[in-house]
């Protein structure tokens, strides 16, 4: 049995660290980074910042233009998303949920729930409405009173089996459940995370996308999200064989 103080320390560190959202830096432009000397230490920082600033302007414009060019895209059919997708360097945010965007990937709002009570985002190299090659997130949108409607549990309905990975997962510092799920007889396997209060789900289309999904999940920042938490609804209640 763990010492309660040790558990408290883990919780305290997790809570404190959850507030630390570093600015994105990706020193991949050159391997020839000079390790020593004050002048040369971060000579890639300015070009990176410039590139990030340019991307912050260009990428949303490109996505906006692409969405308009599609004409009958799902988002266009359903009207404007409840909250716009905003990019900042290697992160994006929608409805107050900020998440890292893996290298070479981008993000797009691909749908919204009935009555605009949730928003669906696909993070992928080429986000599509089915997000078959990426990681999709369904994010609850709170009403004026702060109430929200739970988003669908990716592990319920139509899935043949669920493999529990972690019942004590943290998404942005909040309790969640991580599972591997198989929704068809012969795959593909998927990975999913579901917030214990049903407010958010993350699904990687296959476990080949685990690295990117891990990165997104690990970097979730929920501090600006209007949903501040609710009653836990997702519980592990029984076991059965696959």
């Amino acid at each position, binding site marked *: 049995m763990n*010492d309660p*103080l*040790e558990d*408290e*320390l*883990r*919780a*305290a*560190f*997790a*809570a*404190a*660290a*959850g*507030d*630390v959202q*570093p*600015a994105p*830096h990706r*020193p*991949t432009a050159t*391997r*020839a*980074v*000079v*390790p020593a000397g004050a002048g040369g*230490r*971060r000579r890639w920082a300015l070009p990176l910042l410039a590139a990030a600033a340019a991307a912050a302007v260009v990428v949303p414009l490109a996505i906006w233009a692409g969405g308009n060019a599609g004409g009958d895209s799902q988002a266009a059919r359903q009207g404007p998303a409840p909250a716009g997708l905003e990019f900042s360097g290697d992160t994006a945010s929608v409805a107050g949920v900020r998440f*890292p965007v893996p*290298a070479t990937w981008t993000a797009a709002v691909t749908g919204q729930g009935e009555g605009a009570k949730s928003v669906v985002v696909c993070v992928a190299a080429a986000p599509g409405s089915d997000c078959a090659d990426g990681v999709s997130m369904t994010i609850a949108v709170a009403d004026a009173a702060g109430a929200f409607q*739970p988003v669908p*549990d990716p*592990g*319920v309905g139509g899935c043949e*089996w*669920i*493999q*529990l*990975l972690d019942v004590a997962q943290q998404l942005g510092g909040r309790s969640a459940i*991580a*599972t591997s799920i198989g929704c068809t007889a012969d795959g593909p396997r998927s*990975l999913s995370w579901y917030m214990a209060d049903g407010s958010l789900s993350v699904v990687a289309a296959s*476990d080949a996308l*685990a*690295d990117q*999904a*891990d*990165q997104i*999940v*690990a*970097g979730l920042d929920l501090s600006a999200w209007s949903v501040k938490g609710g009653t836990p609804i*997702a*519980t*592990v*209640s*029984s*076991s*059965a*064989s*696959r």
Partner: protein
Amino acid sequence: MTRLHVVPARLDTSHQEAPLTVHEDVAATTPELLHARHYVKLVRMAALMIDDRYQAEEVVQDAFAQLFSRWSTIDPAKALGYLYRSVTNGSHSALRRRRIVRSVPRDVPEVAPGADAPVLRAAGFETLLGAVAKLPARQREVLVLRYFSELSVADTAAALDITPAAVAVATHHALKSLRQSKEQLS
């Protein structure tokens, strides 16, 4: 809403967050992959050690800069351990520099706590985090590595370049101090 068909007998943790052992067994490890998977965690770890997220970012960026420049000489299987050691060393140096600055009297202005200090004092844990902040640097580093990064005693020892016994002793003293702090406050 309940989840059914859970298969605890087939628990598979391979898809949880990136493993936090310092000897990551990834044959195809590249510095870019390490950066993508561990940058945020390392910044958070350093921020917990030195209580300043901007300085923490500098420490981690320096660690990655060294990793990139020395990649050809580093065993990929030990690269994550190298990063942990670089970041803990960098954090230790940052704290030492800060102590030196604070020990200089008068005309050198006091270094104020980082602007993020109130944020770091996560709600509900102010007392405990405050007590952790008062611990000696080594004890604080051990606690962060053990209870935030979830490193084993051996990996913590490797990251700090000390013996496992020293880790055990530092952990014992740190927990004892924290218990005493809690008792005094209660």
